[in-house]
């Protein structure tokens, strides 16, 4: 009897949580502010604070003799970016980023096209996971795997020997600007590793763009008399360009900022990332390192403004 009476009595609705809930209901702006304050504080203080510090320190003075930094403002670091030696570094990194983006678009397109147009249900899920897995698999381990693959006496060598392609490899490695003394110290090797590591980032946006393309569009094109290759060139390709552009944002900017792959595979010669790393670490010239980070930021900003016109942001 008592139990049922108790059950019938509604819980008093005036606890502190209930009152807070009433207050927040009446003041939606307060509620919004309470939600936003923690992330804004974190990003404002930690992240933007750091970025501003970095920018500011790019104007500090580094004394070459005493190897010390003084907070005296100077434009020397920015000017030094335009030295021919640094110019080489920028050009080397930039050309690699462009080559990797182009090649991954070429390689990714058929995979994405097959995924979007010819798979459904379980096969589509399988392909999706099969692209996501290598994308998320450890970056450093993937790079390590390629040092194993490309090493002298390693897997690549073994396959080349088995197939009797040693002379071909030898010829490719002798091409200047592409080759090198061995696969693992060649431009080609470094290019392959970059291509491998960033390829999934290109596949998924293209696949998403193709997936959005309604089948009726292709039927309409065929209905109007287009042959399959005409449909491909006139309809499919133009509509997949935003996806390609979106994917290239990743391949381009990730290659541009990398310093681990250039350090482990390929011929000597700095990338932008390695330059920043060495200036800060080995040399201790934080101002120069800070100034150098402006290079990828500016290049990426330029790149984004180009691909934005191709509709990349709608396909992200």
């Amino acid at each position, binding site marked *: 009897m008592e139990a049922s009476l108790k059950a019938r009595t*509604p819980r008093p609705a005036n606890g502190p949580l209930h009152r807070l809930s009433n207050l927040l209901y*009446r003041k939606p702006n307060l509620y919004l502010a309470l939600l936003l304050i923690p992330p804004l504080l974190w990003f404002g203080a930690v992240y933007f604070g750091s970025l501003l510090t970095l920018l500011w320190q790019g104007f500090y003075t580094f004394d070459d003799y005493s190897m010390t930094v003084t907070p005296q403002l100077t434009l020397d670091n920015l000017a030094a970016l335009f030295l021919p030696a640094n110019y080489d570094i920028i050009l080397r990194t930039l050309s690699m980023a462009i080559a990797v983006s182009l090649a991954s678009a070429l390689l990714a397109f058929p995979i994405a096209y097959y995924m979007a147009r010819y798979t459904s249900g379980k096969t589509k899920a399988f392909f999706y996971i099969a692209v996501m897995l290598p994308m998320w698999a450890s970056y450093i381990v993937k790079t390590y795997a390629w040092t194993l693959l490309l090493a002298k006496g390693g897997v690549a060598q073994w396959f080349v020997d088995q197939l009797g392609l040693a002379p071909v490899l030898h010829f490719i490695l002798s091409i200047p600007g592409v080759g090198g003394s061995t696969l693992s110290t060649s431009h080609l090797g470094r290019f392959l590793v970059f291509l491998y590591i960033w390829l999934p980032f290109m596949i998924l946006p293209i696949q998403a763009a193709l997936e959005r393309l309604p089948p009726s569009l292709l039927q309409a094109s065929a209905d109007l008399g287009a042959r399959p290759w005409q449909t491909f060139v006139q309809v499919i390709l133009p509509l997949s360009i935003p996806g390609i552009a979106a994917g290239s944002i990743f391949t381009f900017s990730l290659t541009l900022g990398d310093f681990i792959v250039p350090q482990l595979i390929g011929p000597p010669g700095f990338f932008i990332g390695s330059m920043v790393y060495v200036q800060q670490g080995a040399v201790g010239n934080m101002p120069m390192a800070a100034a150098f980070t402006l290079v990828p930021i500016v290049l990426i900003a330029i790149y984004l403004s180009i691909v934005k016109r191709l509709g990349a942001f709608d396909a992200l």
Partner: protein
Amino acid sequence: MVFLLELLDMTLAVQFTGVSRVFGEVKAVDQVSIDIQDGEFFSMLGPSGSGKTTCLRLIAGFEQPSAGSIRIHGQEAVGLAPYQRDVNTVFQDYALFPHMNVLDNVAYGLKVKGVGKSERYARAEETLALVALDGYGARKPAQLSGGQRQRVALARALVNRPRVLLLDEPLGALDLKLREQMQGELKKLQRQLGITFIFVTHDQTEALSMSDRVAVFNKGRIEQVDSPRNLYMKPATAFVAEFVGTSNVLRGELAKRLTGQALPFSIRPEHIRFADDQAAGSGEVEVCGLLHDIQYQGAATRYEIQLENGQNLSISQANDQWQAGAPVYQPGQPVTARWARAAMIALQDAIPGEGR
């Protein structure tokens, strides 16, 4: 005296006084005043964007008015959160909690009020029986048909025994047969429980067939509040005449010639007939025109006539003879239409400010 007035107010379930709701530049609800009686089946009818749903959300507490007062059973509701109001809602998309089974969905209102487990399940079962869904408690909403989900949403909203039930186009997603069946059941349920139903719909047939009274909304304002019969027979404005049922609204010189007044008037198509050989009676008026289209609609046939002044006139004639005679009229033929003077309803030009 004040005490007496408040007592009078208690018979009002919901009272809007000069309520407005502005979203940015848009006046979704503009100076609306309504009195909804306790125990009434009240419908809010209007096209989409006319403000009817916003009014419902204002009663539920999902929106707060920009101006005006809303009283629910005499108590000022402005500033109260939805959970502080004794009203419950049946949502257009049902809004069943997908992670709970049917019984937990229905028992939710009792759970958050702190009602013990055994009692709330017993009462939830009872309410499920009320909507003829006993035995479905263990299913997930995704395993139900559209009509069943609709009933669960109804049971969930009724479990708290609210004094006012809000229904936001609850039948819109159902097919025609099911919708007609649910209309009957809702009406029966409302009589049985005796609680106030406030029903939002854009379907005029639905509003007419179920309601005690209907408010017709247009552009955030109320054009007319009346019983279904009055709404149809005596529309106050051109908008009501044309939105509720089909109407011929005639204006200008023609209206003046026929009624002697400058106001536009409405005449229902089924109140017009073709002139026969006899002369028009004193209580009748006549117009001439060209028959340009005939639509056979089954129970009735619709004739479209182009009048001499360019206006269109629709005539509807019941096909109430079981023997199909040869069609009398052909498109392109000049015809004379005739109707009783008393069948013409004079309309107000402007929207009235108050909807009471």
